[in-house]
């Protein structure tokens, strides 16, 4: 919506938007996102200022457009910490794209022991993740998209969070034979027997890795193998997948809803910019 609806002239007087039920105003404000809420909405009037401090507004925090901001990295960082503060320990879900530091992670880990869902996209060099997740034993969903963690780091995370039912480890994908690699698949197969949902877009796993997963994760209900160009589902293994897995996505299925099929170079470049800060 880019046009401003006009108030009709005549007897119709403008409505008092502050009279909306509290829950409704909260619903509207929650759709603004972190940046718009903290930079603009909270300063409109006393009522909105108060509502923007309501912990129920901050149970789910998404930092997905921090790179667009016209302000210094340290200000953006302060904003992120402030958002976490407002959750008052009730943070359930945290998601970030190309904006994460070890400091922020530990800040969350110290204040959100009940965190259920953690999502990273385009974040790397976060050596603090294994330590942070030790304080997040209730984690049920973890996403690492276009992030490069070592196997040791992934193992450490997985062992610290035995309740993880949904794991997403997504890359860009490549048909290059050198890209074929089952290490991540084997790692998951060994350490995550409780897994229900696995997403491994653009992974280099081969049929060996896939077989290990089917054996190691007996509760798997959904499996997303899009852009995994080194597996071949045409034979028995493919049949086994179709039989066992309720929701299966195959290597050549559409990746319309996955934005990292081509390298998100901008995001990674900007990330390197603030790595220098830390």
């Amino acid at each position, binding site marked *: *919506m880019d046009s401003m*609806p006009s108030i009709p002239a005549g007897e119709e007087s403008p409505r008092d938007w502050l009279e909306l039920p509290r829950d*409704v105003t909260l619903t509207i404000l929650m759709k603004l996102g972190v940046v*718009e809420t903290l930079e*603009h909405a909270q300063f409109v009037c006393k009522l909105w200022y108060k509502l923007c401090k309501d912990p129920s507004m901050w149970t789910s925090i998404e930092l997905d457009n921090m790179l667009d901001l016209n302000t210094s990295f340290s200000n953006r960082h*302060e904003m992120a910490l402030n958002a976490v503060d407002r959750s008052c320990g009730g943070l359930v879900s945290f998601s970030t794209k190309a904006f994460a530091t070890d400091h922020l992670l530990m800040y969350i880990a110290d204040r959100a022991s009940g965190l259920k869902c953690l999502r990273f996209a385009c974040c790397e060099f976060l050596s603090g993740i294994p330590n942070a997740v030790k304080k997040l034993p209730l984690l049920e969903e973890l996403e690492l998209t276009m992030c490069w963690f070592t196997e040791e780091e992934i193992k450490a995370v997985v062992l610290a969070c035995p309740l993880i039912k949904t794991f997403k480890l997504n890359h860009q994908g490549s048909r290059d034979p050198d890209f074929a690699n089952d290490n991540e698949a084997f790692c998951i197969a060994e350490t995550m027997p409780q897994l229900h949902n696995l997403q491994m877009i653009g992974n280099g796993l081969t049929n060996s890795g896939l077989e290990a997963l089917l054996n190691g994760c007996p509760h798997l209900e959904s499996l997303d193998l899009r852009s995994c160009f080194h597996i071949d589902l045409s034979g028995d293994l493919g049949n086994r997948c179709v039989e066992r897995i309720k929701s299966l996505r195959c290597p050549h299925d559409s990746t*319309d809803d996955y934005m990292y099929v081509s390298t998100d170079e901008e995001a990674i470049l900007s990330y390197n910019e603030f790595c220098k800060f830390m």
Partner: protein
Amino acid sequence: MSTEERRIVVLRSSDEEIFEVDIDVASESQTIKHSIEDDDSGRVIPVPNVDGHTLAKVIEYCKKHVETPRSDDRDAQDALRAWDTEYMKIDQNTLFELILAANYLNIKGLLDLTCQTVADMIKGKSPEEIRAMFNIKNDFTPQEEEDIRKENQWAFE
């Protein structure tokens, strides 16, 4: 009562306007749905908080969304979204009344759509612009503004 008759409910707005509506359409409102379940004798269901103009608009939404089959098809989803966008081209007062109606009548999709519309109007605007748009008074004292500025230093640099 024949099956045919059962399929219609009669709604009466706050300003006494009468609407005959298919029961599936009316049941998009959880509030009305529970009303029907509690008393299906076929009497008129009063909707005291919503005027005729707004109720007509609500019914229009419910009708469209009941008639449109749920589909994974991208084109179908885009088409419905385009309809929603056209539907939301309304003046601000109607938008306000529609939000209240969607809330009172408990129609999740409509409440979500209207709230998103307001959020989209707010996005990208400064506090002054937001106040002007919604006729909201700045009730901070100069001292209070100074205090919150200090508290949120990073938002002002």
